[in-house]
């Protein structure tokens, strides 16, 4: 009787273990795909122009994660993916920062233009 109970139990344990083992790489694969897609999308926008190096760094991290995954080093793969994720966020932030700096420069130039117009009025006096 004990043997009859033990056999399905062992089989069930094996099935759960296999499922769990297959789930982890699936999750990592999902993150690979998600991050690769995000990197590609960003590269095709302004981010690809303003934060080229950050995107390249993120892609290097994704590649390193793939290598680690191939070497069955899931921990390292997850760490590399974690780094890639932040690198892509940095790429977006750098682009936003550069755009904001450009806007500020533009607004400053507009202000200077108006100020010089005002100055010219004062210099002309009541003419």
């Amino acid at each position, binding site marked *: 009787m004990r043997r009859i109970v033990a056999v399905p139990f062992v089989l069930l344990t094996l099935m759960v273990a296999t499922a769990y083992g297959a789930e982890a790489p699936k999750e990592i694969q999902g993150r690979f795909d998600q991050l690769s897609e995000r990197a590609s999308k960003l590269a095709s926008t302004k981010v690809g122009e303003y934060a080229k190096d950050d995107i390249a760094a993120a892609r290097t991290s994704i590649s390193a994660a793939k290598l680690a995954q191939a070497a069955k080093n899931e921990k390292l793969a997850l760490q590399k993916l974690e*780094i890639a994720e*932040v690198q892509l966020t940095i790429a977006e*932030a750098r682009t936003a920062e550069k755009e904001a700096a450009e806007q500020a420069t533009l607004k400053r130039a*507009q202000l200077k233009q*108006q100020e010089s*117009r*005002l100055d010219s*009025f004062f210099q002309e006096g009541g003419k």
Partner: protein
Amino acid sequence: MKRILYALSALLLFSVSVIQAAENDTPEARINAAKVSIEKATVNASNIKSAIDDLQQANIYLKKAEDALASIGFMTFGDKKRALEKDVAHNAQMVGLYVSLSGLHASKARSDHDAEQYDKLTLITKKRIGIIESCRSELSKVKGDVAKLGSAASELSVLKSENSKLSEQVSKQNKEIIELKDKLEQARKAVVAPSSPAVVPVPVVK
């Protein structure tokens, strides 16, 4: 002999740089560098929420790095030690990344703030220019009116002078008319006086 000395000095310098690099590469050095970068970034972040949030993340990773370092004891050897050191390195790298992110967010927030201020000042300057332009337009209108008044005044002056001349002429002509009337009166009187005896009827003799 000199060559040997040069070779030895080069070797010495190389060893020193290798030792220094190794010292900078230790888990402790990484954690110290991470701490210093967070401190600097905290000053830079000031009151910018997104930058502060990034630094909170950086602090979480710093804690993880410190925990990993604390796990490396005297009795930790081999793969376990290497794995913990790698954890420290990874978490220190994450600190660096979040510090960079914080800097970018802080910088963006400052640029946004600057742009907003420039916009406000531009609006104020434009309003001032508008006021000056409207004053100028009013002034130009008034100047035009004054110029019109000036020309009207000069026309009036000409008319006055013409009027005065005409008045003179009229008074002169009036005088002449009076003189002529007098003369006419005298002439009439002169004509009337000799003809009066002729009017007296001559008596008829029968």
